[in-house]
C-alpha cells in the first residue's frame, strides 16, 4: 500500500477559502440557508467552512446541521461494509429552506442520494445544493454533480481517497491510498 499526496495544507486552505466565498456570493447573509454536513466525514469539512464564514467573513447567524444517512442507504443488506449510524442533528425546519449538503469526497453519488432521501423525511426544502472538496471523476453511479467543488481528481476504482483534517499532531492533507 502506498500513499500519494494530492493536496497539501496550503492548497486545502485556498480551496476552503474559495468554497466559503462562493457560498457567500450565492447565499448572502444565509438567512434562508442551512448548511448540513454528512456524517461521518462531511462534518469536518462543514466545521472548517463554518469557522471561516464566522471568523473571516462575519456571518454569525448560521444554521448548521449534521445528517447521518445510514438508515436511508440503498446498500443495506447488499454490502459487506456495515455502516455505523452517527447522530443526526437538524434542530430547525427544513421546509422552504435552501440546503447546502456538505461532504468531503464525492464518489459514486450513493451517499448523496441517501442524503436526499433522508432530507425528504424532514420536509420539502426550496433547493438542495451540494458542496464537496473532492470530486472523483468518471466514477458516478447516479446523475449527481456538485454545485460547489474544490477539485476534481482521477482515481482508479480500487483506490481510496482520504481527507485528513488538521489536529494537534498533523496538518490538513488529501491523499490517494493505492
Amino acid at each position: 500500500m502506498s500513499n500519494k499526496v494530492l493536496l497539501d495544507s496550503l492548497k486545502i486552505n485556498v480551496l476552503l477559502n474559495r468554497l466559503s466565498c462562493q457560498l457567500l456570493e450565492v447565499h448572502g447573509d444565509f438567512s434562508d440557508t442551512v448548511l448540513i454536513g454528512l456524517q461521518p466525514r462531511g462534518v469536518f469539512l462543514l466545521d472548517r467552512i463554518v469557522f471561516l464564514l464566522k471568523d473571516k467573513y462575519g456571518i454569525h447567524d448560521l444554521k448548521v446541521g449534521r445528517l447521518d444517512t445510514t438508515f436511508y442507504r440503498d446498500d443495506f443488506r447488499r454490502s459487506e461494509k456495515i455502516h455505523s449510524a452517527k447522530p443526526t442533528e437538524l434542530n430547525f425546519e427544513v421546509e422552504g429552506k435552501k440546503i447546502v449538503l456538505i461532504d468531503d469526497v464525492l464518489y459514486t453519488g450513493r451517499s448523496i442520494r441517501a442524503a436526499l432521501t433522508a432530507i425528504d423525511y424532514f420536509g420539502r426544502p426550496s433547493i438542495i445544493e451540494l458542496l464537496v472538496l473532492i470530486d472523483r471523476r468518471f466514477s458516478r453511479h447516479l446523475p449527481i454533480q456538485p454545485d460547489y467543488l474544490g477539485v476534481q481528481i482521477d482515481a482508479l476504482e480500487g483506490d481510496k481517497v482520504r481527507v485528513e483534517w488538521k489536529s494537534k499532531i498533523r496538518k490538513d492533507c488529501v491523499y490517494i491510498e493505492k
Partner: protein
Amino acid sequence: MDELTVNNLLGVENLTNNDFELIFNTANRFKEVINRPIKKVPSLRDITIANLFFENSTRTKLSFELAEKRLSADVVNFSASQSSISKGETLVDTVNNILAMKVDMIVIRHPHPGSAKFLSENINSQIINAGDGTHEHPTQALLDCFSLKEKFGDLKGKHIAIIGDIIHSRVALSNIFALKALGAEVMICGPKSLLPKYSRSLNVKVETDLIKALRWCDAANILRVQNERMNLNFFPSTREYFKLYGLNKEKLELIKKPITILHPGPINRGVEITSEVADSENAIILDQVENGVAIRMAVIYLLASKIKNITN
C-alpha cells in the same frame, strides 16, 4: 461497525458486551428518529416480519409492531386465539407455513420456555424472542438497561433491586443476565414463595425485607404479580402482599433517599405499586415504553442486516 454476534435474539444470556453496546448505540440513533415529525426510515422496506403471539400482550406487541413499521418493514400479525393451533397444528408447521409465504423474520411470544430456541433450531429464519414463558424476555431487559443507562450513565457498580414476583418473571431473569453483564449489582426481593430456588446460581443478592432492599438500591424494578401463571396460592391475599411488598410513598419516605422506579407493565395499581409512586417524578415507566420502541428498532435493524439473500 461490528455486527451482532448472534443471528437470533433468543435471550440476553448469550449476548456479548459489544452486542449490548451496539444495540444501545443504535437505539440512541433510533430514539432520535422516533422523535422527529416523520418517525420513519426506509431501511427495511424489502423485509417482512411476522409477529406470532401465542400469549396475550398489549404493550410488547404494539411496541414491536411500531418498531417494525417505523423501519418500513411489512408486518403480519398472528394471535394464537385465531389460529390453527387450536386445530392441532404443531408450532413448527405453523411457522413453516408462514415462512412459505416469504416472511423474513419472526417475533415470537409463547408460554413455553425455550420455544424461541426450539424454533430457531427447526426453521430457517431469524427469530426474536418476545417472551418465552418464565424464561427470558430479552428486549424488555435491553430497554430496562437502556433506560437505566440514560439515567445513570454507566451501570458499573450501581445497585439494582428487582422486586416482587421473581419466580414467574422472564423479565427478572433477563434483567439479571443483562444487568450483571453491564457490571451492576443485582438484588432480588420478594416473599420466599415467589423467589426461585435456583437464586444462588444466579449470583445475586437475595432479600425478603422490602425496606432493606430499598435502602440498598439505586433503582428498583417493580414486577407485576402474575396471577395468570399462579395455579397455587403463593401468598395469602393481595392485601397482605401490598402491605409487605407493595411500594408506596410511606415506604419510600422511610429510606430517605430518592430511588429510580421501573415497572415493565402492565401495572396492578394498588398491588405491587401505588399510583402515587408509579406516577411520581422518580418513576421512569413511560421512558421505558418510549425506549422500548427504539430498542426493538435497533434489534430488528441489526438482525435484518444479516439477511443477505437479496437475489433469492
